[in-house]
């Protein structure tokens, strides 16, 4: 008898503590160790992207000069506007000290005396054709690649989700017109379109983000449209409309949350795709404008000096590969987590 009561209480307890949707997804996701490791890689990339100035740069982190302490990375000082900190570090007086970032070259600082030098103690990843430190350019390129990936995908989600929602919610003629629009975008050779637009606009990081975003929303749109078409027939949606909710409220509050998880999965794959497109564009010379660093740009130099500059091939290639793989693996793990039935069914 006692046992039964205890069981009942436990069951009730379990009910009260029932995990939410996202907690369940996280539980499922955690089971996949590879995906978890990939998530770790992404967090590391984030860290590098956010703190790139502290990891690689020509300005010292901390400088004690004549008894005063400066933080040249964090703040701009009037007295140091034209200072070469390398000289400062050579002429330090007693009691002063200087602490450089682990990589003490800025991504744009060039040294024509050590052009295209292979990896060495001074330049761990070697230098490029202007004597710039490859490691520093790669570290600073992380921020550019990731921000292009995230913002481009953000734009794609906003466009795709709005168009898909409108098409799926209203159906009929609206759906017909928007569906034709999807079809147009799908049939376009997207990379060629991106290239064309960038060739005519001045290439800037913002233009790249916008162009990738504007041309890659069809996946999200089709997904949201399908989900909305399905949900539209549900009683609770009818009820919400009958209660007088405005269309926008029904779409945003009652329908969109149901489509959120698959959209985020698509977005994760989308970031991998956007990073890849950005590096391809920079490789072709249509990407991030010089002198800003980009992985694709470092790689593109290797094509010109392919006979000997292997470090210009290996390191940026590895960075692009690692980022793309990490996002794809997380996307895959995430997709399995929201739908355990399709586990291992592949891409």
């Amino acid at each position: 008898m006692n046992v039964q009561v205890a069981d009942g209480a436990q069951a009730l307890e379990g009910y009260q503590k029932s995990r939410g949707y996202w907690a369940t997804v996280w539980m499922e996701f955690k089971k996949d160790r590879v995906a978890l490791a990939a998530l770790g890689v992404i967090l590391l990339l984030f860290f590098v992207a956010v703190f790139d100035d502290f990891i690689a740069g020509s300005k010292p982190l901390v400088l004690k000069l004549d008894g005063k302490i400066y933080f040249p990375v964090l703040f701009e000082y009037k007295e140091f506007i034209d200072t070469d900190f390398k000289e400062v570090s050579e002429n330090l007086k007693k009691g002063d000290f200087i602490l450089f970032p682990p990589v003490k070259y800025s991504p744009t600082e060039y040294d024509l005396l050590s052009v295209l030098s292979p990896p060495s103690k001074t330049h761990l990843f070697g230098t490029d054709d202007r004597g710039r430190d490859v490691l520093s350019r790669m570290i600073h390129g992380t921020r550019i690649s990731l921000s292009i990936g995230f913002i481009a995908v953000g734009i794609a989600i906003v466009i795709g989700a709005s168009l898909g929602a409108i098409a799926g919610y209203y159906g009929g003629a609206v759906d017909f017109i928007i569906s034709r629009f999807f079809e147009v975008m799908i049939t376009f050779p997207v990379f060629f379109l991106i290239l064309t637009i960038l060739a005519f606009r001045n290439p800037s990081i913002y233009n790249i983000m916008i162009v990738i975003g504007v041309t890659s929303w069809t996946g999200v749109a089709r997904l949201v449209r399908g989900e909305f078409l399905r949900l539209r027939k549900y009683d609770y949606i009818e009820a919400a409309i009958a209660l007088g909710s405005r269309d926008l409220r029904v779409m945003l509050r009652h329908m969109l949350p149901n489509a959120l998880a698959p959209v985020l999965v698509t977005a994760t794959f989308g970031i991998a795709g956007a990073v890849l497109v950005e590096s391809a564009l920079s490789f072709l010379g249509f990407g991030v404008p010089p002198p800003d660093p980009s992985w694709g740009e470092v790689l593109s130099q290797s094509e010109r000096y392919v006979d000997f500059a292997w470090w210009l091939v290996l390191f940026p290639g590895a960075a692009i590969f690692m980022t793309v793989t990490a996002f794809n693996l997380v996307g895959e793990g995430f997709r399995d987590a929201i739908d355990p039935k399709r586990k291992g069914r592949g891409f």
Partner: protein
Amino acid sequence: MRTYIIKRLLLLIPTLFGITLITFFVVQLAPGNPVSRKLQVGEGIKAETITQDIVEQTKKLYGLDKPIYVRYWIWVKQIATLNFGRSYTDHRLVIQKIEEKLPITLALNIISIFLVYTISIPLGVYSAVKQGGVQDRVITFFLFVLYSIPSFWLAVVLIYFLGGGEFWDVFPIYGILSPGAENFPFYKKALDFLWHITLPVICLTYGDLAYLSRYQRGSLLEVLNEDFLRTARAKGLPESKVIFKHALRNALIPIVTIIASILPAAIGGSVIIESIFSIPGIGKLGFDAVLSRDYPVIMAIATISAFLTLAGILISDLVYVLVDPRISFEGRK
């Protein structure tokens, strides 16, 4: 069937219209028109000597003096008769240029798609049969790695190792034929061609392997759960017969139709690979046209490749309906 096809053909019209409209406006509204470009490039004319007259004359020559919607209308009327105008760079007919280059790109992509299918279907079947086993996981991992390698990176690496960089000089890295190959006998010419396109085809192929074999694996796994396969096993058929005769036939259907979604990506992918290997195909033509702002060529490539893709989607949908009687013409959206 006929009404279905007619309906699908009618739906092509608004889509094609949208494609031309988007390309036209993207290109036309861009700053830096071909007139100023042309005049800069022009035969050593100095900037001061370019008078307003010359600008107007050049504009008139290319029909750029009319308002944009008139120009669009003229252009649409022209392409209805497959007249894409003349290239701004060398004044040749655009359609001629494309006729020259299209077979090369199509050959590359057909060989690549053929390879993708012949490699990934067996791989997919194998890992579906060994589902969850070591072989399955090794294949999955290996394909996943391939999937994430940027094709332009692999191209550079292949050139470095196999194209006469520091290591072996096994494959040519430039063009599709050796100099003087026009006079080779047929078989020798064909071999020369295959030798030249080996590296580009590898770069175009490996990425799709993962996608397609995973797809094949998934679709076979789905079929393997069906009742009729249990029946086939229950009546004592050998496993090979169950898989190849009963399961695979059904599992191949979605694989065939996916070819339509590979096509548009193929043209885009060709832009990079053809530029790296200097292959005179549509991708390289497009890339050069973008560099020199050759509007007619850009628009023709966008239109023609979109049209090919649309045709591909249509054909694969029809094939889908033909091979799978469970799908009706009207029921499908």
